[in-house]
């Protein structure tokens, strides 16, 4: 969904995309000329399992309103078990961040395969819309 109102709050979103699946999925969404929210800054990583909690905390501190980590469906990891490890780590981080009072919606994970261009577009639209409703992220953002 493209925001109809250009005055609407445009959230800054950082998306960590797995090189083997989600990144190709976003590519597919692009070459299929799908229209979706363009708020995300995609960062291709070799594996969702390599996304350190530090990257996510750092993204929030540098002003991201939302962070999305996207990897391969369970069982599809190029490195056999990277996405399973990511799932544990990110589950724990999400619980911890929530425990400190940050909205859990700001930080999500998705499984998007290289064939799911449409799902990528849908995830992006929904995520952007959720963050837009939450408003700017000020809690973990460094005031410099």
């Amino acid at each position, binding site marked *: 969904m493209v925001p109809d109102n250009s005055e609407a709050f445009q959230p800054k979103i950082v998306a960590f995309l797995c090189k083997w699946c989600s990144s190709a999925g976003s590519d597919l969404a692009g070459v299929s000329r799908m229209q979706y929210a363009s708020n995300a800054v995609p960062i291709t990583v070799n594996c969702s399992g390599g996304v350190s*909690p*530090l990257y996510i*905390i*750092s993204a*929030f*501190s540098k002003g991201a309103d939302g962070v999305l980590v996207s990897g391969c469906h*369970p069982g599809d990891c190029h490195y056999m*078990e990277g996405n*399973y*490890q990511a*799932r*544990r*780590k990110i*589950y*724990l*981080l*999400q*619980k*911890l*961040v929530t*425990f*400190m*009072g*940050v909205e859990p919606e700001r930080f*999500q*994970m*998705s*499984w998007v395969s290289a064939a799911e261009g449409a799902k990528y577009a849908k*995830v992006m639209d*929904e*995520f952007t819309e959720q963050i837009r409703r939450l408003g700017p992220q000020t*809690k*973990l*953002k*460094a*005031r*410099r």
Partner: protein
Amino acid sequence: MISIDDIRAKAKDLLDSGAVKAVIGYGRGTAGYMARPVFLSRPEEAEELTWDPSCVHNLALYLTEGGKCQSSKNLAENGPVAIFAKGCDSRGLVVLLQENYLRRQDIHVIGLSCEDGGVLDEYKLATALDGRTALHVTFADHGDFRVTTRDGEVRVKAQEVLADRCLECRTAHPVIHDTLFGEAQPRAFKDPFHALTAFEAEAKANGTLWAFWEKTMERCIRCYACRSVCPMCYCDECVVDSIQMAVAPDTTPEEKANRIKWIERSNTNADTFGYHLVRAMHLAGRCVDCGECERVCPVNIPLRLLNTKLEKEALDMFDYRVGFDADKPSLVSSFNDRDPNDFIR
């Protein structure tokens, strides 16, 4: 009840026979009633050893301290070391073994069971004594403490002065040991995760989670005492200080400015949150709840809440108990088909 003479005799024997090169244990402090860590290398020094409710320290720290990457090599070269370990400390040793930080043959674990007691909390003791100065604290029967003050001896109920973690502890008996003192005894003070559950229920009901943490973290002076005292924080270079980024005479300001700093040194709230989130995440599945970080915090940040939160999640969702099996893969390097998946789109 554990007799200190037995412990001293054992330590003396170990040093005498050359079975260990050194003993890391507790000794009488030089000021006040609190014990201090002592490092013995001669048999006659064994008389310095002590065991009382003020032996709060997690001595596993001293196996990882001082040239942290060197210490396992040092241990291998300089012979086995005997180390005192309470229940929680022994689980800390198990985690270090699990991470292949130590070799089992390089340590001789002198297990000390807390039995039906535990270690004390200095603040609680001060409150219980109501202005009197404690000179010496010893175990009495029924897990109570006998406190020698300037105005004579007082007996205090353990429940009043035990550290919070000890009230919630169910594993006061060492998990691994080569020599064991004391017996496993049933304990029932408070439910495990009591403090966490109470805090979470109240803060969630009032919606004050963020307000609480924002106010709490504002106090943090980033002294990193919590990091220094933690036996699990043994990285050669911590993410918060970039010690290995050498500054040469020809390093330009641009180069310095463009270096990646994940977390800035300033103690603004965002960076403080970054530090504490990273610290807690790094301890996920590794923290044995020895409570040292909270004890040494000069501004009383309730760090145990963060640690136990992740400990509870690991137990509830991944059925992972920290520090019981050195052969098990660690929490974040393992997975299960039953891991939660419904939070993912």
